[in-house]
């Protein structure tokens, strides 16, 4: 599903990624762990085709994103750091916009049903600018899965969520695995990753410090500030 070979990315004089090689198989849920600035978000942005690598190659679904990005993006769902939602629009309007951009049709009933599923049915007609951070995060998650993507890229999906919201993210990931699709999730929540993910990739200084079973991540490669690290 994803084959990354020697991926590198440079911003001015700083290398954010220094040769990252890994694969993602169908049905895999992978936790992307690492300290702030380790390259997690940059890696997700490269896989999302939001940025081009400075070196190395990546294959998504057997295709080169440099040649087929427009079509590949239809198979990728992205939850980024920033919401990408418009505060002056309502949740329904934001979803209508996203659905049209994804090239799918979304009836008013289907839209409301999806908003109800993430606990936002009561605020469907309210402007997103009036939402709490947690509500914005739920709506962002919903938007990223609106087109039923084969590969889901989540950057800190648990941010600002309450207990119910955390459960919604967990459910999305469980559904992804059950459908034989894949997800990469950058997170600081190690304990939660242990429960949900099949594999962990730990980044440190733009390189892979560990790639293997999530249960076997050596604590020495994890930054001490991560939640759940002893």
């Amino acid at each position, binding site marked *: 599903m994803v084959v990354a070979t020697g991926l590198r990315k440079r911003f001015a004089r700083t290398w954010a990624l220094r040769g990252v090689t890994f694969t993602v198989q169908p049905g895999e849920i992978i936790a992307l762990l690492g300290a702030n600035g380790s390259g997690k978000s940059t890696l997700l942005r490269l896989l999302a085709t939001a940025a081009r690598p400075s070196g190395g190659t990546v294959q998504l679904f057997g295709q080169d994103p440099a040649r087929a990005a427009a*079509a590949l993006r239809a198979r990728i769902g992205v939850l980024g750091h920033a919401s*990408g*939602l*418009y*505060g002056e629009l309502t949740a329904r309007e934001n979803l209508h916009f*996203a659905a049209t951009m994804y090239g799918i049709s979304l009836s008013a009933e289907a839209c409301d049903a999806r908003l109800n599923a993430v606990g936002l049915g009561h605020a469907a007609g309210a402007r997103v600018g009036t939402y709490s951070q947690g509500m914005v995060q739920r709506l962002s998650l919903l938007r990223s899965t609106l087109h039923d993507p084969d590969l889901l890229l989540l950057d800190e999906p648990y941010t600002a969520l309450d207990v119910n919201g955390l459960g919604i993210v967990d459910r999305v990931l469980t559904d992804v695995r059950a459908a034989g699709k894949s997800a990469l999730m950058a997170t600081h929540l190690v304990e939660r990753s242990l429960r949900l993910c099949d594999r962990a990739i730990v980044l440190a200084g733009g390189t892979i410090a560990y790639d293997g079973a999530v249960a076997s991540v050596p604590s020495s490669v994890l930054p001490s500030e991560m939640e759940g690290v002893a």
Partner: protein
Amino acid sequence: MIRAELQRSWVLLWKDLLIERRAKAAFNAMAFFAGVVLLTFGFAVGPDAPGVAVETGGGTLLQHLSPGLVWVAILFTSQLAADRSFQLELERGGLDALRVYPGDRKALYFGKLLANLAILLLMEAVLLPFAGILYSLDLWARLPQLAGVAVLTTLALSATGTFYAALTANLRARQVLLPLLLFPVLIPVLLAAVKATGLVLRGDPMNELASWVKLLGAADVLFLIVAALTFEYVVEE
């Protein structure tokens, strides 16, 4: 395929206009700025300052200067509109979200372009009558020709403004760089617009209008083709 791209452009236009209708951030700033520019020059020159020789059209000095004053005001406001349209995306990470939607990125360009064009034309619909009253111009008698020149010029301003605003969107010195890049490119358009508007207002005694209108049309075609072909790389990080 083309239908999907048209729908993407259309929904982007709908989204930008809906946000503008609710926030009124760009339109109010643009209309206020352009109005102040016209008013200031009106006071500076004065309504009764003698104009040019009768054989070149006569009228007051203010009437003679009015095409230049109006288009300078619109040029500056077009930069505000273009900058605002991408600022809107940067505020909540919308530009990144736009980058990861499927389809051809030309659809993003044309959606943004149409939104900027609509907002600018709306602003001109308010500004031109205001200029007409302020400078005692007889706009109604020449409205179709004036509207034609305005649409062609505004299309060129929007096409280049949208392109360069996207190019500078991620730069820290965006607000300095945008006019530096934009205005030199627009000098031929501005000169043609001023000349064509002046000819329309004076009745085009020497039949020169057509050549200036052709220049505006050629600039539109050129800017649209270059922008559409290169926009993919412009929005790339």
